[in-house]
C-alpha cells in the first residue's frame, strides 16, 4: 500500500496573498473583498511578501532545497468559485523542493515540493438549482506540501499529519484552531492505479477516508477487479468515499508564468530567516541529550514549549532525574493553571525561575519533598500555601484511607498502572468537584508510588 498526501496549510498573514483585504473572519459573505480578489477586469495582484517568508520557513522545516529565484504561475480552470478562472500558484521553481521529514524522528518521508498559492472562494449549495458564492476566502494564502507515496498505512498517515501540523503550528505560529487551517488531498493505491480523495479536513477523517479506500480497493482487487484511476470525495457523515469523476488523463491546466508578477530573488531572504526548533526535532533531541523516554518527551512538548524549556533549565541546574520527577509531575499537572494566571509574563524567564528556585531548595535539602510539592503548587496557582496544604492533606487522607481499606489496589498497581483509575474514580465520587482532576491524579500517583 502506498499513501501520499497533498497538504494545504493556510498561512497566518493579516492580509490576503495579493491584495490588502483582511484574512480574519467576516461578518457576512462577500464583505472582505476588493477588485483584485474578485478578479475584476484591470485589477492586478500585488504579492504580500510575508507569504514568501512563511513559505521559506516551512521549506526549511521540511528540509527542502530553497530555490534562489522563485516565481508564480497561472493555472487555468473553470469553476464558479474561481474569480479569475485562473489561480495564481507555483509550477516551475516552487519555493522549496526535494525535502525529507522524519516521522517520529526515524521513518523518512520524502517531501516532493512545497509551493504557495491562493485559495479560491467558497461555493454553498442552496436547494436543487442554486448555489451561492462567497469570495471572502478568495486570495487567502496557502502553502501546499506534497509528499512522495512513502506512507504505509492510514494510521501512519494520521500520525504523520498530526506531527506535521504540530511542527507547522509551532514554526509559523498558526492560530490554535489548526484543524480549520489544514486541508488534505489523500492519494492511495493498493495496486497500480491510485485514487485521490479530495479535500479531507481533520486528522480523524484522513484516517477514516484512507481506511475506507484501503478496504474498498482490497475488495475489488481480491475479486479480480481493476481499480479505476479517479477522484473521490469523503462523506464525513457516512464515513465513505464517493466517486466524483473518473479521469483517464491528468487535467491540463495550461500553466504559464504569471506575467503580472515578477521573479523573486529570495536567496538573501532565505539566508536571513532562521527557524525555531520544531517540536519533533526537540523531542528527538530531548531523548538523546537527557535520555528521556519518547512518551515523556512528547508529553512535555505537547503541554507547552515553555514547560519543556523549564525542564531543560532544571535538568541543567540539578540533574535529569530531579527534573523529570518534578517537571513531569506536579509542575506539569498545574501548568494550565499557571499559564492562565500569568499568561502575559510566561514568555519571561523570571516567572519560571520561581519554580526553578523551589526545586533547587529541595535539591539542596532545605525543604522536604512534601514541602516542595506544596510550594510549587502554591506558587503556580497563586493560592496561599496554607489552603493548598489543607486541600492537599485532605486529599491525601481521603486517598490514604481508601488505600488502607483496599490494599489489593497497591498490589494491582505494581503490575498495571491503570489500577490508579480505581483510586481516582473513588475520590471523584466521594468528593465531587472539590478537587481538580490533575490534583487527584497527581496525589494518587504520589501516594501509590510511596507505598510500592
Amino acid at each position, binding site marked *: 500500500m502506498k499513501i501520499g498526501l497533498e497538504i494545504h496549510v493556510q498561512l497566518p498573514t493579516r492580509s490576503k496573498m495579493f491584495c490588502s483585504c483582511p484574512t480574519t473572519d467576516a461578518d457576512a459573505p462577500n464583505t472582505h473583498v476588493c*477588485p483584485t480578489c*474578485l*478578479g*475584476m*477586469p*484591470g*485589477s*492586478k*495582484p*500585488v*504579492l504580500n511578501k510575508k507569504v514568501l517568508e512563511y513559505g521559506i520557513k516551512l521549506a526549511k522545516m521540511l528540509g527542502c532545497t530553497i530555490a534562489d529565484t522563485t516565481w508564480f504561475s*497561472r493555472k*487555468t480552470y*473553470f*469553476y*464558479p468559485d474561481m*474569480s*479569475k*478562472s*485562473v489561480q495564481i500558484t507555483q509550477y516551475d521553481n516552487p519555493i522549496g523542493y526535494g525535502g525529507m521529514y522524519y516521522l517520529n524522528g526515524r521513518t523518512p518521508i520524502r517531501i516532493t515540493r512545497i509551493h504557495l498559492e491562493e485559495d479560491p472562494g467558497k461555493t454553498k449549495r442552496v436547494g436543487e*438549482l442554486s448555489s451561492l458564492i462567497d469570495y471572502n476566502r478568495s486570495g487567502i494564502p496557502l502553502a501546499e506540501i506534497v509528499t512522495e507515496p512513502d506512507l504505509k498505512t492510514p494510521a501512519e498517515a494520521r500520525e504523520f499529519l498530526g506531527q506535521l501540523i504540530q511542527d507547522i503550528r509551532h514554526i509559523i505560529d498558526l492560530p490554535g484552531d489548526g484543524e480549520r487551517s489544514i486541508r488534505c488531498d489523500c492519494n492511495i493505491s493498493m495496486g497500480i492505479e491510485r485514487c485521490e480523495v479530495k479535500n479531507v479536513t481533520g486528522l480523524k477523517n484522513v484516517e477514516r477516508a484512507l481506511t475506507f479506500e484501503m478496504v474498498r480497493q482490497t475488495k475489488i482487487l481480491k475479486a479480480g477487479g481493476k481499480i479505476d484511476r479517479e477522484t473521490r470525495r469523503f462523506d464525513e457523515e457516512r464515513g465513505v468515499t464517493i466517486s466524483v469523476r473518473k479521469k483517464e488523463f*491528468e487535467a*491540463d491546466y*495550461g*500553466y*504559464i*508564468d504569471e*506575467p*503580472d*508578477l*515578477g521573479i523573486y530573488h529570495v536567496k538573501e531572504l532565505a539566508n536571513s530567516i532562521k527557524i525555531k526548533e520544531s517540536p519533533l526535532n526537540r523531542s528527538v533531541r530531548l531523548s538523546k541529550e537527557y535520555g528521556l523516554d519518547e512518551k515523556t518527551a512528547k508529553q512535555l512538548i505537547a503541554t507547552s514549549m515553555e514547560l519543556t524549556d523549564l525542564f531543560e533549565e532544571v535538568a541543567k541546574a540539578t540533574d535529569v532525574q530531579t527534573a523529570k520527577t518534578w517537571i513531569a509531575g506536579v509542575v506539569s499537572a498545574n501548568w494550565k493553571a499557571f499559564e492562565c494566571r500569568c499568561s502575559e509574563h510566561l514568555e519571561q524567564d523570571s516567572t519560571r525561575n520561581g519554580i526553578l528556585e523551589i526545586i533547587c531548595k529541595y535539591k539542596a535539602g532545605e525543604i522536604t519533598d512534601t514541602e516542595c510539592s506544596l510550594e510549587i503548587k502554591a506558587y503556580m496557582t497563586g493560592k496561599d500555601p496554607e489552603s493548598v496544604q489543607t486541600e492537599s492533606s485532605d486529599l491525601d487522607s481521603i486517598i490514604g484511607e481508601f488505600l488502607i481499606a483496599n490494599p489489593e489496589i497497591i498490589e494491582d498497581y505494581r503490575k498495571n498502572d491503570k489500577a490508579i483509575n480505581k483510586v481516582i474514580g473513588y475520590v471523584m465520587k466521594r468528593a465531587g468537584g472539590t478537587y481538580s482532576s490533575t490534583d487527584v491524579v497527581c496525589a494518587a500517583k504520589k501516594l501509590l508510588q510511596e507505598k510500592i
Partner: protein
Amino acid sequence: MNMQSVLSSLEKTNLRYSMFNDFLKNGEQGNSKFLFSAKDNLTSKDFETCSGSRILEGYHPVFDATAIAKMREAGGKLIGKTNMDEFGFGTFSTNSGFGIPRNPFDLERSCGGSSGGSACAAAVLEDHVSLGVSTGGSICCPASFCGVYGIAPTYGRVSRYGLIDYGNSLDKVGLLSAKASDLSKYLPIISGIDEKDPTSCVQPKLDLKKEKIRNIAIPKEAIDGLSKDVMTAFQSSIDTLKGMDIDVKFIEMPALKYAMPAYYVLATSEASTNLARYVGMRYGHQDGDLSLKFDDYFTYFRSKYFGDEAKRRILLGTYTRMAGFRDRYYAKALNVRMYVINQYKQIFNEYDAVLTPTMPFVSPKFEDISKMTPVEAYKADYLTVPANLAGTPHLSVPCGYDGNGMPIGMQFVTDHWKEDLLLTMANEWDHTFDMKRAEVSL
C-alpha cells in the same frame, strides 16, 4: 482652444466616425484644463468599459485606471472611451463588438488597430490627446494610418493598473495626438511607479532637454514587402533626417523575422488566460438558461458573446500552453524574446535608434480587409511587433501621404527608458514635416 465646441459636436462627430463606445453627451467643460479620451480597455468610473467586447457590455468599473486617474488629477476631462478591436485583437479595429471606427482621411478605410478609435479622436478633435494601449503595435499602427503622433513607452514606465489585459507582459499604456508637443506634455504625467501594479518600475525621470538622436540604424529586413508609396515616403524621410544632421546606416537584424511568431505565441497564451474570467457570471450582463451545469452555461455564454477573433486567439493561446506543446511553443517563444532583446541591445550599443516604416502599406479599404486571411492580417504588424516584444519604447510620426492623400508613418525605436530621445525627435520632426490634418466636415 475651443473645447466647448468639441464637446457640443461630440455626438455628431461620433456618428460620422464611430470612434467612441461611450462618451459625454451634452458635456460641460467645467474647470478642466484639457480634454482627453481613453481606449475602452482602460477602466473608468464614469463610463461603461467593454474593451470592445460584447461580453463586457454594461460593465461599469468601480475604479479608474491609474493613467486615467493621473490625467484627471492634472486637470484633464475624460470625454469618452474610444472604440477598439475586441480586447485589442486586431490591426484594423474591425473586430469591435460596437461598430467600426472610420479613417478621417477616407471613411471607407480603417483607422488601424487596435487603438483605432484613439487615433481617430486624435486626428479629428481639436487639441486632443488620447490614451492608447499597445501590445504588438496597437498605438503606432493606428497613429500611422490616421496621420498622427503616437508613443508607446518602455514596458513598466506607465502603470497598467486598470488596464484590461491582453498580453500582460507586453501591454503598455501610451499616447496619441496630432501635436508632437502633447506627447512630451502628457507622458510625464501618466508615468511613474504605482504600488497597485508590481510591473510598474522605478524609472529614470524623463529629461526632455537631453541629447538628441544622432545616428539611426535601419534594418534591411524591414524594407522587404513595403508598398511602393510607403517606400517612396520612407526614402524621402531618410533624406530629411540626413538633412537634420542625423547619421543613417543600413544594418542586418535577423531577429525581426522571428519576432512575429514568438509574439503571437506569448500574446495569445497570456490572452487566453486573461479571457478565462469572462463567463457571464460576474461582470456585464447575464442571459441564458441558468439551470444549466456551470460549464455548459459558461460555454454557451462564451460562444455567444466573444467575437471570432477573440475565439481564434483563445484557441491558439490554449493550444500553445497545453501539456506536451508548452515546451515547443510557449517556452521556446520566451527564448526567442530574449534573442530579440539582445539583438536590440547590441544595436543600441552603436546607434541611438532603429528606424523603419510603421506599417508596410497605407490604411486599406474595409472591402480589402474583409478578403484578408487571419495570417495576412497578422503579418501586417511585422514592423511594430519586435519593439513590443522587447519592451522598448517606440514612436510613430507621420512622414508622407500617398496619391490618395492617405497618411504614411515611420517608427523610431530606442533603448529602454530612452523615451526622451523619442520625444525630442517628435518635436523636431514636427517643425520639419508639413503635416496635413484630415478634413473634418460635419
